[in-house]
């Protein structure tokens, strides 16, 4: 035994004698690890502050042993059930001992899920662990061992904003992932995506993290047919329209993934109107070409959106002009929101790839937009009418005043 370790253990033994002469300590693990200093003390401190520590779960519940004895040989003896640091392959079952036990978990929170272990066994991680691959993620890899917090606490490694980094610890590490033959740029792509920017920069917890699409305990790559369901969890209308569209069958036949064929996956950006249509930037043109039916549909939908956008911006400009002239535009601004809503609905309706449905929604917006343009122009005309009217009125009053003044002079 090396000298420093010997000194530490000798110190522990000595302190044990001193403690034994007084009242027995409640947790010898804590006492000894604190005395050992960094990095051992931080483990117990983290555990004491976390969800387990706060709920009275002690070191021995996971590591075994006898925490009432200050004799480390007794406390850490196999006879006392001491198992030391659990091996990765044993961790799911160890955590599941409590977390998969409904009766046990009810005492802490009757609403807590207890199917994590079952789900884990179905996951890619669980499957590989079963085959003996101890590099794959198990409970501790994501949640940590000491310092575990519920997922809704920002300190937690599985708090939504922290999830991409937690997954990226392994999945963005080229060396670590070398054996698995899967890409490692997902995290880098995700950080630049609309979802990533919303979650990581704006802290918008409504934006999806890795687990929202891949699952967490049952994490697995989404299959070809389930992608629309994954995206449809949030983008419900788009999913419904796509499922009924002509593209659904064709994509299935050609083994093309549904949403991601056009939108991408980890690096998904805010869709732009240039994605549809017949220009070079259009995604439609990757499959369709001039002369085919898809080309005409793409052109019709693109034109519909462009004209609705045009009338929206035109009416918005006119309303702004009227507002700057101090005219009451509150009603017009309210109706302008209807045009915007129609524009959003038209963009959504694109997923039906049915020009009749797209034009039906678009025409409603066009009508409101056309009326708005007319109303805003009326307000601007009214503004000039008021000023011209004032000029005429002032002229009449001035003439009357001059005549009256002349009369007063005559009277005086």
């Amino acid at each position, binding site marked *: 035994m090396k000298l420093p370790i010997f000194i530490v253990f000798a110190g522990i033994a000595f302190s044990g004698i001193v403690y034994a002469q007084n009242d027995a300590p409640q947790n010898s693990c804590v006492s000894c690890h604190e005395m050992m200093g960094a990095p051992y003390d931080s483990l117990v401190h983290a555990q004491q502050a976390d969800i387990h520590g706060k709920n009275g779960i002690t070191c021995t519940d996971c590591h075994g042993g006898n925490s009432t004895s200050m004799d480390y040989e007794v406390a850490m003896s196999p006879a006392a059930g001491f198992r030391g640091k659990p091996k990765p392959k044993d961790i799911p079952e160890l955590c599941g001992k409590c977390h998969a036990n409904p009766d046990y978990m009810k005492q802490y929170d009757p609403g807590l899920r207890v199917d994590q272990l079952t789900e884990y066994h179905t996951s890619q991680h669980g499957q590989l662990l079963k085959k003996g691959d101890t590099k794959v993620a198990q409970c501790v890899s994501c949640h940590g061992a000491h310092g575990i917090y519920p997922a809704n606490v920002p300190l937690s490694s599985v708090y939504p904003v922290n999830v991409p980094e937690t997954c990226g610890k392994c999945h963005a590490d080229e060396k670590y992932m070398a054996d698995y033959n899967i890409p490692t740029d997902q995290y880098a792509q995700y950080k630049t995506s609309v979802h990533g920017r919303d979650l990581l920069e704006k802290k918008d917890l409504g934006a999806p993290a890795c687990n929202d699409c891949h699952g967490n305990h049952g994490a697995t790559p989404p299959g070809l047919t389930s992608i629309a369901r994954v995206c449809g969890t949030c983008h419900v209308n788009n999913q419904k329209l796509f499922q009924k569209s002509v593209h659904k069958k064709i994509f299935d036949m050609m083994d093309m993934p549904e949403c991601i064929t056009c939108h991408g996956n980890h690096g998904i950006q805010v869709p732009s109107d240039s994605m549809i249509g017949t220009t070079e930037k259009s995604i439609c043109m990757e499959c369709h070409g001039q002369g085919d039916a898809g080309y005409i549909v793409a052109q019709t939908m693109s034109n519909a959106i462009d004209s609705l956008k045009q009338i929206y911006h035109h009416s918005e400009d006119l309303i702004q002009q009227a507002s700057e002239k*101090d005219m*009451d535009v*509150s*009603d017009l601004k309210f109706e302008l929101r209807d045009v915007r809503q129609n524009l959003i609905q038209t963009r959504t309706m694109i997923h039906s790839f049915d020009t009749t449905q797209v034009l039906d929604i678009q025409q409603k917006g066009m009508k409101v937009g056309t009326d708005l343009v007319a109303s805003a122009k009326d307000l601007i005309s009214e503004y000039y009418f*008021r*000023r011209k*009217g*004032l000029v005429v*009125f*002032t002229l009449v*009053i*001035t003439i*009357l*005043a001059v005549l*009256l*003044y002349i*009369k*007063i002079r005559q*009277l*005086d």
Partner: protein
Amino acid sequence: MSPGRPDKSNTGVMEWLNDRYPIKAWQDFAKKKKVPLVHGTIWYYFGGVTLFLFIIQVLTGILLLFYYRTGSDQAYESVKFLMTKVHFGWLIRSIHSWSANLMVLSAFIHMFSVFFTRAYRKPRELTWITGMILLLLALAFGFSGYLLPWNQLAFFATKVGTDIVGVVPGIGDFMLTLLRGGHEVTGATLSRFFGFHIALFPGIFTLILVVHLALIQIQGMSHPMGMEGKEAEMKTMPFFPNFVMRDLLLWLIVLNVLAILAVYFPWELGQKADPFASAPAGIRPEWYFMFMFQSLKFLPAHILGFEGEILGIMTFGIAGLLWMFVPFFDRSSLRGVKSRKITYIGILIVMFIIAMTILGYILS
């Protein structure tokens, strides 16, 4: 009237009227009535301007009534409809609001001009008192009318204003309930304020205005101090038509000013009142209440064991009463002497009102 020409006043309609009413006597009265032509004659016109603005208030108020609907669920919408859908509705409302403010301003100028020229002295004490009552009623008109569009600013300003009434010792709670129609500003308050604004106040105002104008006609215009008994030396002009023509000229100018204000600064409606919303920033009363509002804000919580706000309200109340009865305190004016003390008090009050109003706007 030159001989040989027919007396037009005794023909047609006038003859018909003369046979039945003492028109000739009124004409003679108007012709004989003289207005002193002195250095401060300009101040004589502000009474007429105030009257003109009141007439505009009545006329535009009647037009607004064609569309206004009371009740917390309809008031705002009806005013919005009036301003956006009714032809010239925006103009009528803007003229009504602007003329209300100009009327209060003109009434203040009229009051202070009468004060500094001591025109309130014997025998015109009652003219002064009726004038003071008219000014208070004009302020009450303003306060009650402010709430009627039921917008956010008016709602909270009324809440603050009636809260102040509520702290008056003894009758505060009763007054608060009477004004609000309950403990809070609600639709019941709006109904009451509407009743006060279009029925109660106009009725009382018209009665007192008639008395005020009758007293002026009976006693004539006040002469400058020290001119009593020297009427023959004093330059004058006939009330009719010379003074009336000048009045008309000023009225035309005021009408044009009103039109310019209404077109360039249309009275805004703002957001509908929401009793559950938090009070918007910068809540303040109309400008003519600002000096009192700001003074009360400056007062410490407690003064000599009394609550500061109550003491402030009591002080304003007593000061108002003293001001109303100043003709009976100002003995020197009876002797034809202008008391310097009274002049200084007047100047101090004017400076106080101006300073507190400016501070009120700067600090809010």
